[in-house]
């Protein structure tokens, strides 16, 4: 994974909590900072890209490691 500023592990939490927690984390970050989001909810493969697209926080990276989904989101400038 590339560099990030904030890490948020939502392992064990199900829809919609990963999205809600990601939103909260991003709201406390400044533009250009990067969030490393870890999710075990399988629906996140579709939900996080949708969240990224709708909120203008670019999804820079996504992959799966040891059964967990990892995303790098960059806080947008709104």
């Amino acid at each position: 994974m590339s560099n990030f500023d904030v890490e948020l592990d939502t392992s064990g939490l199900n829809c919609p909590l990963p999205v809600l927690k990601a939103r909260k984390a991003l709201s406390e970050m400044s533009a250009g900072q990067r969030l490393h989001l870890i999710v075990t909810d399988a629906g996140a493969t579709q939900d996080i890209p949708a969240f990224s697209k709708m909120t203008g926080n670019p999804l820079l990276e996504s992959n799966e490691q040891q059964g967990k989904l990892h995303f790098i989101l960059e806080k947008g400038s709104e």
Partner: protein
Amino acid sequence: MAKKLAIIASKGTLDGAYPPFLLASTAVALGFEVKIFFTFYGLQLLNKNLNLKVSPLGNPAMPMPVPVPSIVQVIPGLEWFATWMMKRKLKQKGVASVEQLRDICVETGVDLIACQMTVDLFDFNEEDFIEGISSGGAATYLEFAGDADVSLYI
């Protein structure tokens, strides 16, 4: 301009409480402006103390550990058991509680509107409702829903 989500919440069961609060809290996270209009049994979702239940009775699609014939489902305690089982499962699977989702809705500014006609009809006491509820009627809902991007009846 922000997208808008308008929801009518008409169910007061545990399973019926999830869709409105879940979609509303997520919609806010996606930048929507959201209003939920609570009517009929949905008004139960506004009570300070939620005591929501789920019943297998009249719901043949509800997964049960063993098949329970309808005639047996009237036995006192079965509804309690089904509710306990559902809550346990929700927790095990990391699903937020209804209270948690409702709190997020309140904190993030979802507009919760109690249908005045059904509040009167069932003699609901507005003092039993959580803080910050507004009230309105059909026209209040339709004014917002008229130019909403998504409008749901649940």
